[in-house]
């Protein structure tokens, strides 16, 4: 990689009471890249996301984003720096409508603060109008225009996953982390979502890291795949390289994988 990486994790470790969920992780993601993060259950993939977004800061090592260390930054600050994510176990604002979920995350439009909202200043009115337009555009982009006024917890499962992406995009990230975006979807929904992910990457100039269990989706969408097991990266490369790697087969199928 010649271009400086957008995101770099240097020798990062996250441990919970002695259990090393992520151990000595090194990760470099170039601007514009789509990287798939795969591995068996419990390999530490979601912990990597929690580490990158500041929920569990690494106990050792360092995360550098766009040339600046994220050390000591809280999740909100990490997001404002340009990293957004979705959650594997959907964490929408359940009692708010789809539209409200997206609207309240349009931070770049909502520059005027609460005081301006209370005093109903002209700046506040402009910001609100801009945020409303942005929110509507994002919902339309993810095919959610018909469910604007539906509460998030009343949406179908697939729509909830799409709303998670719309909400993350509202914060105008440069790096988008998708945690199992197609979990629980049927095959046609999965194909549609994979297409959407491609389009969004183009249109919003995104770099992406995605955790995905569906191999067809992850191999199709990603330019590069990182495989984790037991908190460590065990293989890395193009989808073709990774597919044939004996360590990967072993991780997924156990030591007798060859005979299975």
């Amino acid at each position, binding site marked *: 990689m010649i271009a400086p990486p957008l995101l770099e994790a240097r020798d990062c470790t996250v441990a919970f009471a002695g259990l090393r969920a992520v151990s000595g992780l090194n990760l470099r993601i170039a601007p514009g890249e789509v990287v798939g993060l795969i591995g068996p259950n419990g390999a530490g993939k979601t912990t990597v996301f929690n580490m990158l*977004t500041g*929920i569990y800061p690494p106990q050792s090592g360092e995360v550098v984003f766009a040339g600046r260390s994220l050390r000591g930054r*809280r*999740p*909100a600050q990490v*997001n*404002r720096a340009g990293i*957004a*994510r979705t*959650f594997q176990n959907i*964490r*929408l*604002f*359940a*009692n*708010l409508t789809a539209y*409200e979920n997206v*609207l*309240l*995350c*349009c*931070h770049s439009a*909502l520059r*005027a*603060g*609460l005081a301006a*909202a*209370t005093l*109903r200043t*002209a700046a*506040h009115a402009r*910001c*609100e109008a801009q*945020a*409303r337009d942005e929110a509507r555009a994002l919902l339309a982009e993810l095919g959610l225009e018909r469910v604007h006024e539906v509460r998030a917890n009343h949406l179908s499962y697939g729509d909830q996953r799409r709303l998670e992406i719309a*909400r*993350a995009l*509202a*914060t105008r990230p440069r790096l988008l982390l998708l945690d199992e975006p197609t979990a629980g979807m049927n095959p046609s929904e999965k194909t549609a979502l994979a297409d959407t992910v491609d389009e969004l990457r183009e249109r919003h100039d995104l770099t992406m890291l995605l955790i995905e269990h569906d191999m067809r989706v992850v191999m199709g969408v990603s330019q590069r795949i990182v495989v984790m097991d037991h908190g460590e990266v065990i293989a890395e490369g193009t989808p073709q390289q990774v597919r044939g790697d004996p360590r990967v087969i072993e991780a997924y199928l156990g030591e007798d994988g060859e005979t299975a």
Partner: protein
Amino acid sequence: MTPLARPWMRGAGAVAALGALAWLLDRHLNAYYYQVLVLIGINVILAVSLNLINGFTGLFSIGHAGFMAIGAYAAAAVSVYGGAALHGTLDPILGAAVGDAVLLLAALAAGAVLAAGAGLVVGIPALRLKSDYLAIATLGFGEIIRVIILNLDVVGGARGFGDIPALAGFFWVYLFVGITLVTVHRMVRSARGLAFLAVREDDLAAEVMGIDATRYKVTAFLVGSFFAGIAGGLFAHFLTYLHTNSFTFLRSIEIIVMVVLGGMGSLTGSVASAALLTVLPELLRPLKDYRMVIYSALLIVLMLTRPQGVLGDRELEVRSWLARRRRREEAA
């Protein structure tokens, strides 16, 4: 007409109408009804301000009576100890009526700022606590405030604090009802203010989406306790006598009941239930001992049938009601 001129004029019109109504009520309403009406207003301020903390931001606080007490005693101290000096300087120039108004506003401001300061002091450490732990911490705070005041001789201690000038009546109370409602409504119904609700729904997800959850929690405590302080100051200058017995944790519970009954996250619900729960004990006066029984029974029935409160998080709005009716007619 500039876009700004119109809301200002509407505000001025509302204040003038309120003034006229107050003028009439001050002269023609019987003292008992007048008192109930004013207490409804004070309870509305308390319920709406607590709703910002408990209902919209989802922080379970049982300390609202404590903030109210701080506002009440601080405001009363200002007008009792500073009243003569202020009247002495202002009255010869502006007249006694203006002197009264300035004194009341100064007293309310002192009470509100002090209460808000207490809100900040409680808010910041308390925000490390979740749900039930936060409730217990705020409960403890309210009791500490009450016991401290009980032992402060400057504000009467256990004898109570009397001779507070009667400066607040219908006009001032309902002026602040309006200000509280407009402020909280504009805060939580703006796109930015949706962040309060996001913090309530899932504060970790809100953080990850770039919302400084702590800031919104502290803001909720700050604004909520500010208006509780105002309510306390009005209470002091209406009843002219304060005793710490008015600010026990039972008072906090009463305010919580108003919020829960009306609907956590519904401002109009808080207004309606504050009015109902102020009038109800008066109507039940013949059965006075049973008042708490009825209260409790009402709560149990409500929680069984409508756990989200009468209005849930919806608002009673004439506009949306009209729109719904129009849609129904079109459909028919």
